[in-house]
């Protein structure tokens, strides 16, 4: 095992800047969505990823477009870390024809298979078996594609968690299970709903490695994910990484979070993941404050552009209602 210092040193400049950019993209994207939602321009409900950036970014830093991820209802961050187009994402959230899913999916169902992003998911725990599927494809086709499977602390009590981890373990599938433990499933605390002390402890039940990392430390996530991804690529099977993290806002927009104390909200907010990563990058001399400011400004503009793009985009045309149900659409849609 390398020491922590040695590990930290291994983040290369290019990688570090990419991570920073992605984290800032997520934060600014989510903050913008929050604002737009508040003024009523975004339909439905949205679950924001702000505060948890280090997790998605630290993991996806090791993945290429050929690798896969599965995601959750809180999926914007995973999409961005997997390099989905911000414009297409924002348009999707606005329900526009130019969205990544033509406006048919919405916030909870953004996918981009070309980027290996297999879909956000409105079903808690729904993505875990799916991660086994893409990993099975890689295994049968003998590619070295890895699947990262993101899910929340609430999801770790779903049956699919158990079935998926066991299946990945016995088939030795190249999956990295990433538990995003933000302490709550909706309003219910992790310690009430889960009988385990740490989600990572459950890895023992599958004879796979289980690791707890500080999910607000992008560097720590980066290193844990690196090991797990390499392990998977070597054909040594799945790993479970638990990232202890913090959700900056409510479960969904509109949640007043009475279940969190004021102190809890404030003390955690202090440990902001982006500030912390900036500190790291500058301390290590990987980037200057100027570089980072430049990136922030660029991202600022990207997000503005994404919003403009979305707002200027048309809604889907009427005929889109009944297309895309089947690849081949015989008769009149199944007798309907």
């Amino acid at each position, binding site marked *: 095992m390398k020491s922590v210092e040695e590990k930290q040193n291994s983040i290369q400049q290019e990688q570090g800047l990419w991570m920073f950019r992605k984290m800032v993209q997520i934060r600014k994207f989510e903050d913008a969505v929050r604002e737009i939602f508040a003024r009523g321009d975004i339909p*439905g409900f949205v679950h924001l990823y702000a505060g948890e950036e280090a997790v998605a970014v630290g993991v996806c830093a090791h993945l290429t477009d050929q690798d896969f991820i599965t995601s959750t209802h809180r999926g914007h961050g995973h999409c961005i870390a997997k390099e989905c187009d911000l414009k297409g994402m924002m348009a999707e959230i606005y*329900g526009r024809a130019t969205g990544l899913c033509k406006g048919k999916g919405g916030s909870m169902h953004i996918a981009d298979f070309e980027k290996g992003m297999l879909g956000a998911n409105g*079903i808690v725990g729904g993505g875990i078996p799916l991660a086994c599927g893409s990993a099975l494809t890689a295994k049968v086709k003998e590619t070295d594609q890895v699947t990262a499977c993101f899910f929340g602390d609430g999801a770790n009590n779903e049956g699919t968690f158990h079935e998926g981890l066991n299946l990945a373990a016995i088939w030795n599938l190249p999956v990295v299970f990433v538990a995003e433990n933000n302490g709550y499933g909706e309003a219910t605390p992790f*310690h*009430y709903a*889960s009988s385990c002390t740490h989600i990572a402890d459950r890895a023992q039940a599958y004879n796979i490695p289980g690791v707890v990392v500080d999910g607000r430390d992008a560097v720590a996530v980066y290193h844990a994910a690196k090991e797990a991804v390499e392990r998977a690529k070597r054909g040594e099977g799945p790993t479970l990484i638990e990232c202890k993290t913090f959700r900056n806002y409510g479960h969904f927009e509109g949640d007043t979070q*009475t279940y969190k104390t004021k102190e809890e909200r404030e003390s955690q907010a202090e440990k902001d993941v982006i500030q912390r990563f900036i500190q790291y990058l500058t301390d290590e001399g990987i980037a200057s404050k100027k570089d980072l400011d430049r990136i922030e400004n660029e991202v600022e503009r990207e997000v503005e552009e994404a919003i403009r793009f979305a707002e200027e985009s048309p809604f889907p045309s*009427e005929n889109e*209602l009944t297309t895309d*149900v089947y690849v081949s659409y015989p008769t009149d849609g199944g007798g309907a």
Partner: protein
Amino acid sequence: MGRTISFSEAIREAMEVAMSKNPDVILMGEDVAGGGGVDHLQDDEAWGGVLGVTKGLVKKFGRKRVLDTPISEAGYIGAAVSAASTGLRPVAELMFNDFMGVCFDQLLNQGAKFRYMFGGKVKTPVTIRTMHGAGFRAAAQHSQSLYPMFTSVPGLKVVVPSTPADAKGLLLTAIEDDDPVIFFEDKTLYNLKGEVPEGEYRIPLGQADMKRTGSDITIVGIGKQVHTALKVADHLSKQGVEAEVVDPRSLSPLDNQTILQSVEKTSRLIIVDESNPRCSIARDIAALVADQGFDYLDAPIKCITAPHTPVPFSPTLEDLYLPSTEKILSAAEEMIGETLTTV
């Protein structure tokens, strides 16, 4: 009669009445209390369900009877079913009916079949409350209306109320019923206001309600679509066509007689429902009438449903997805053989 309260308040009231009367009635579900295990949380600040329907009940009845569950639907729905067959009378919330896929076995093969498989020697008085319905911009996995699947299962009873008063009366009956009942709540109706009797108020299952009487055409509406049907009826009335609007309220048992009698009178039938069309309750009712009411019919039976597609997210598409007054009117028009001005 009662005061004017909302659909969601009416539902809460039914639970409150049932819980006050019978200590065996307990509530369980994800955040039905809200913030399970949070020390500092005042009970009146607890969520009370994701849309606040059970808010206040934990304050009144305590956390021993209002149980937050983990996100483990198979686990707690199964527990509710078996608690019912061993002496409690649980009301379990399956937040969205769309989540049935992760816990259906505990209803399909367990709760629904206990009584039959075990030779009539057990009863399972469990109520499952669950949200359904499109129009909330909640997309494909949070907007379905899946009561046809439950209706097809012998052993389950299925209720889909359309008004606050019906919701209260039916839910109280459902909770007190000795069989498993799946109680569907359209999330887009929660804010609908209406007069609701105070205190104990019950409506029997299997009794349709004539939401409007008329002699020219029968429109059966399910849940929210009762209101669409009523709108259409108003419009038809202005043109001299009197529609009878039948609200079955419970789909299983279904009040065949009221539907058939209405068609006997009007000779024309439209069924309006927002489930997908195939093997739907709309087609189920159509088939009932095509058999037992065939001789009454003067025109083809029309089902106005959602198309055979998932629920789209985009508002423009979702609005098209739902049955519209236009579609119903044009069906009515065709049946009556006259041109009616559209709404």
